[in-house]
């Protein structure tokens, strides 16, 4: 369909209208729907971002009436809305658009019932949201296809949002993509990676390409290395069953952290348009050097915290990585030879996600350092994703007094302070984007396959060996091998 420019658009003052549509959520009684999707949709209604006419149709196996489902979601929205904004009157109006269809996704009758419900709501556009166990994705897509639910009338659309994981390795990702494409076109397929919806991740692009001072330094000549950390202080919190199949490498690095790395390292696109930006991300992912099998032990480290095997639902002999770290190189002119260290883990000392760009030291140490004659610390640019979203620049400054002694100081920018406005949650941003048809922040098939290609050698190595797990204590920064991995290249983790 050719997009006609709206001559009344004024993006500085108001946003594009979210078109009238029905959102069909599979797995509508599950955790994601309760904690994220419904609170995000309610918040959009609160902010007047939803159209006057819309419908949300939930599906799960649990038999429920529309009213039962509304009551459940009411409690969920009250409990999980991030800033506690709950308006009883608004909820009544919002809940009138909530519907529920019980049924097993393997049962063809379910899709006929859903079709009837969509028709009842008189919505022409339909957004399907797969919020179920990944093993049901292809079953549901097939069901949608066979029932012709994916056939849109003239001028309308059908779109599909798929939650991660997109497969469990490269082969299964390709197979999943092929099954989806049998029913939905790639441009109608929205693979959600909520990290890309975070304001602070989007701001990496603003920092890099909206300012003139950073980009000239953003290359191998000035950058010594990059550290990307996504640490959680909690354990698997009841998700042991799922997590022991996934592990940290699949759950975090394959998707979120490689996407963040791509955002940090990608080339600027010529225009800020969905496919132009995604092309550059995909190019970067394809430029990541693939580890040879014999390199995996040097460049990747798996860990498991003490006590994981005692978590409910976890195999007492599980080989799951609750910690994963890797050293990645980008084979292009900008980044050749610059290591990107990525680590993620559970039960680490604190919850933090950040990106630290460490610059090369001054070529000549003119001044004695203030802390006992050690080498001066290098400049660091830290992009803090969570918590306390912001940017810090660490540099050296003269200590007051006689002599020329230098001390590292920090120049901090905090989003919360400079922009008093509430930031929309990642799911609010991404749901609106899918409804208006903007896939910029969604991952494309080639990006998914490129990132699986990057971690495939690590997966194969780890699948074929037996680790001496557990190998780190809760509350520490992971196994000692991770420190050794980075030390081999003459660097060390920022553990502050």
């Amino acid at each position: 369909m050719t997009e006609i420019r709206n001559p009344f658009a004024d993006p500085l003052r108001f946003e594009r209208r979210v078109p009238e549509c029905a959102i069909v959520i599979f797995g509508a009684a599950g955790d994601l729907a309760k904690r994220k999707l419904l609170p995000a949709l309610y918040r959009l209604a609160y902010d007047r971002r939803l159209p006057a006419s819309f419908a949300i149709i939930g599906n799960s196996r649990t038999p429920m009436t529309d009213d039962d489902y509304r009551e459940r979601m009411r409690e969920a929205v009250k409990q999980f809305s991030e800033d506690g904004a709950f308006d009883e009157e608004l909820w009544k109006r919002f809940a009138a658009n909530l519907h529920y269809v019980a049924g097993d996704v393997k049962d063809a009758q379910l899709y006929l019932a859903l079709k009837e419900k969509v028709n009842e709501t008189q919505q022409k556009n339909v957004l399907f949201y797969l919020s179920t166990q990944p093993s049901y994705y292809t079953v549901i897509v097939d069901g949608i296809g066979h029932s012709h639910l994916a056939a849109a009338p003239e001028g309308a659309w059908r779109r599909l949002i798929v939650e991660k994981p997109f497969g469990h390795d490269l082969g299964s990702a390709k197979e999943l993509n092929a099954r989806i494409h049998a029913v939905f076109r790639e441009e109608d397929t929205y693979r959600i990676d909520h990290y890309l919806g975070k304001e602070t991740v989007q701001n990496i692009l603003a920092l890099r390409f909206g300012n003139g001072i950073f980009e000239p330094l953003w290359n191998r000549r000035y950058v010594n290395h990059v550290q990307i950390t996504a640490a959680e202080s909690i354990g698997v919190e009841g998700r042991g069953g799922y997590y022991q199949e996934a592990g940290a490498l699949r759950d975090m690095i394959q998707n979120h952290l490689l996407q963040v790395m791509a955002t940090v390292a990608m080339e600027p696109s010529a225009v800020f348009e969905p496919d132009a930006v995604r092309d550059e991300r995909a190019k970067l992912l394809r430029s990541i050097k693939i580890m040879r099998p014999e390199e995996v032990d040097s460049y990747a480290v798996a860990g498991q915290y003490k006590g994981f095997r005692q978590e409910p639902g976890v195999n007492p002999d599980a080989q799951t990585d609750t910690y994963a770290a890797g050293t990645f190189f980008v084979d292009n002119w900008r980044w050749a030879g610059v290591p990107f260290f990525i680590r993620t883990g559970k039960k680490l000392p604190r919850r933090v996600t950040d990106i630290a760009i460490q610059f090369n030291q001054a070529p000549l140490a003119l001044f004695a350092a203030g802390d006992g004659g050690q080498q001066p610390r290098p400049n660091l640019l830290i992009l803090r994703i969570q918590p306390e979203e912001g940017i810090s620049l660490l540099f050296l400054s003269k200590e007051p007094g006689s002599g020329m002694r230098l001390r590292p100081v920090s120049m901090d920018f905090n989003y919360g302070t400079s922009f008093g406005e509430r930031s929309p949650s990642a799911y609010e941003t991404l749901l609106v984007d899918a409804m208006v048809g903007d896939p910029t922040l969604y991952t494309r098939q080639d990006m998914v396959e490129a990132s699986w290609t990057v971690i495939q050698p690590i997966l194969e190595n780890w699948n074929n060996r037996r680790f001496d797990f557990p190998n780190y204590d809760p509350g520490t920064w992971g196994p000692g091998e991770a420190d050794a991995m980075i030390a081999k290249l003459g660097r060390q983790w920022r553990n502050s």
Partner: protein
Amino acid sequence: MASAVTVQPERILKDLQQLWAQMAQAQADSGGVLRACAMTLVVAAEDTADAERVRQTVGVLMHNHPSRAVILRPRGDGGSGAELDARIFAECWKPFGKTQQICSEGIEITAGQSGFSEIAKFLVPLRVPDLPVVLWCRGTHVFTAALEPGSLEPLFPLADKIIFDSSRVPDADSALQFLRRLRGRGGRVADLHWTRLTGWREVLAHLFDDRAMQPNEVKTAQVTFGGPSVSTCARYFAAWIRSALPAARVTLAPGDGAPGLRSMTLLTASDKLTIALGGDHCLEVSGAGRHYRSLLPSVSEEALMHEELGILGPDPVYDRVLTA
């Protein structure tokens, strides 16, 4: 927190430094104080009573637009003396769940009529270096008295953006001429009476997002206004439609009701679409297969200023409408 100071700019800045040091000491054991500043916001109040309202409005705005606020307050006795008085203050707030206070600073300068003509010189060193300067000129006097003694005109070159409000100006044409003239000199101007139209404009834009009509099929558009004479907002709205639909014939027509925009009708060869001001601060949309009400957003002064302070760069749509 506020304290009176004498009026040399250097002294004001020094006193601000002292104020920050005192506040930091006072809050040292309870999370500390963070000074936040993203711009210099200069507000020219109409009179003493208005200056009080400004102080409250600025306090609200600072949460989203932390700034050094400089409030220019005409002397209450209407005196024409050249003397200036100044006092400094800080607006502080504590974000929910945080212990650290966030504070922005303010300077209130009181001046007699001839003092105002000197004020531009004072403001130069009081601007926060390298950050944008926004000048908010309140009242209607500014539209007609730009060249009179005590006018604000000398302040205009200091500002990156100047915000006016033409809502109470009786002569819409001269107000628009004044704004065009300033824009023509290269200044960035805004009019809160244009900002008040955002709700109307959003409803109309969304109808075209929904393809209620094809832009190239609209033959005529009629904008109806209330009150004895056409206001700037009606002129703006008509100019906006004209610039978006150059092939359509756009007319302004007087109607019943209070001053301001009352309705808008678009006609194609086969269809009619109307947006009309209804009760309860709602717009009523009818025609082209639609019939619904849409709540207008708040048009409080804080909301309007919040919108304008969010746009410190070029505003191509307003510029196009102003010069149409």
